[in-house]
């Protein structure tokens, strides 16, 4: 027996017990910190947009003139620009992402071809948005300009259509991977029942797979719409940055995200900064509502 050992063990025991409680407290503290982080984000955005709310009131949401020089802050132009580009992008991307969902979820579930397509999708999802924007600016804009020249509209090249095309390419990976998971989940008894009744595979997909995967596909669409609305860089680089209500799909415009990207660092007037923050708050609310509905549908499907 070595002298002093019992005391030593007791010491260590005490130490471990107290370290244990510190550790547990630290874990809970980090959890609470996460809650505070999100709460802090909300509070900061709301508090910093209060001056704008006071100065502009409701006309902030209905005004169609955004001219900081004359203290006119109407953000409706950006809301319209955002929704127009995003929904257009969604419409363009939908046939492709549906096709990929059916391809990966029904026709080619595994094997070389499907893992090739899956890797391509992952690769695409990994490319930073500023790269998409740059490619759009140097490659897509001249193409769109040529099309515009041939169809006799003002050949800007930049504008709603170009932004929507880039956005469509960017959101295909998201909606495709969510939708293909959902298509994959359709029970095979249902499909086999349809086939055994003499349906062709196309009829089976049309009458059985798509209807039963409908809500999941819708959720995937909503989640990718949320991404499209919040997307900043690629859109900023090709949309033309004109603070006007877009007059058509070839018209230059501005989105909520791109107006912040363009003007925030240069805004000097306090109300001006506050108005941009309010645009940010509005942008966040729109994205959150859309993606939360999407996640809720996904959650309900899984349980």
């Amino acid at each position: 027996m070595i002298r002093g050992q019992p005391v030593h063990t007791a010491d260590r025991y005490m130490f471990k017990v107290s370290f244990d409680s510190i550790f547990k407290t630290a874990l809970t503290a980090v959890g609470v910190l996460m809650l505070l982080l999100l709460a802090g984000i909300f509070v900061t955005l709301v508090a910093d947009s209060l001056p704008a709310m006071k100065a502009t009131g409701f006309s902030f949401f209905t005004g169609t003139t955004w001219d900081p020089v004359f203290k006119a802050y109407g953000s409706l132009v950006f809301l319209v620009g955002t929704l127009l580009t995003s929904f257009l992008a969604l419409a363009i991307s939908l046939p492709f992402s549906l096709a990929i969902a059916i391809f990966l979820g029904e026709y080619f579930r595994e094997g070389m071809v499907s893992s090739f397509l899956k890797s391509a999708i992952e690769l695409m999802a990994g490319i930073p948005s500023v790269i998409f924007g740059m490619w759009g600016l140097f490659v897509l804009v001249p193409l769109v300009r040529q099309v515009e020249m041939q169809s006799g509209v003002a050949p800007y090249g930049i504008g709603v259509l170009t932004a929507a095309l880039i956005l469509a390419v960017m959101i295909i990976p998201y909606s495709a991977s969510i939708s293909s998971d959902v298509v994959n989940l359709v029970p095979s008894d249902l499909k086999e029942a349809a086939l055994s009744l003499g349906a062709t595979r196309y009829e089976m997909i049309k009458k059985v797979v798509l209807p039963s995967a409908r809500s999941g596909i819708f959720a995937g669409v909503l989640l990718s719409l949320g991404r499209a609305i919040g997307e900043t860089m690629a859109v900023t680089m090709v949309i033309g940055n004109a603070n006007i209500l877009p007059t058509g799909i070839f018209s230059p415009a501005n989105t909520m995200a791109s107006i912040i990207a363009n003007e925030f660092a240069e805004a000097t007037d306090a109300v001006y900064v506050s108005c941009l923050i309010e645009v940010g708050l509005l942008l966040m609310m729109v994205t959150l509502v859309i993606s939360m509905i999407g996640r809720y549908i996904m959650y309900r499907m899984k349980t």
Partner: protein
Amino acid sequence: MLMHQTNIQLRIVKDRLFLALVVLLSFAMIAPLLLIIFHIVKNGIGIISWEFLTALPKPMGETGGGIVNALAGTMMLIVLASLIAIPLGVLAGIYLVEQKKGAIATGVRLCMEVLQGIPSIVIGIVAYAWVVLSMGTFSALSGSVALAIMMLPVIVRSTEETLRLIPDNLREASLALGVPYSRTVLKVIVPAGLTGILTGVLLAIARIAGETAPLLFTAFGNPYMSLNVLKPVDSLPLMIFNFATSPYPEWHAKAWGAALVLVVFVLGMNFFAKVIAKRWKVQF
């Protein structure tokens, strides 16, 4: 009878056409991907040289010059953001695994989902309000805070998902040997799921390495070399944005070069994460 026959044939034709359409549309998606990679490699490869990677940008009108300030800045932003986000994210992930139920845990999970959905530019505004305004200057630190907020949900989720896979026997065996709870978590459970956590960290880094929007008014950009966390720094995506939207063809060429470097880095990170996830899969 004949009617019936043609009807079946029509249906079969429709079936085949549909398959062809699905295959065609699916592979059409690869076209823009190939085009983007092709253009980046074609326009970027020519400008990449030792000087491009190790020199500072030169003023307009002088030839040569490089992107080393952006490379250093990107690395600094990633390291700082990781230092903030990895400990917090991993601890929060452990918390979620240990507290399966409970109001706070449910709240944290919801929080992470919400955080994931917040547009990156809005996170930039928040980092501006919190750090830039209180320090009075654009800084690498403020950019890192924005990026760290973006890393958190990815790390928290991957940590939680990985540690959830670890069977209870492992924990019970350790506790039965008299190992205190904290040591059980830190020395048994976390090491067992380490590769999964690492994958999450790499994916989070890949996510933020290409982010531009939250850096526009936090890290701000800087044409000179700076390793001071309290001063503005440049980053690769910021530099690409500034060069690509400038009116000078020389700068456009540099933007392509920087884009090639960035794409190689980001895709390499993704690839690396995938290899780790596959090779050292967390399984029991």
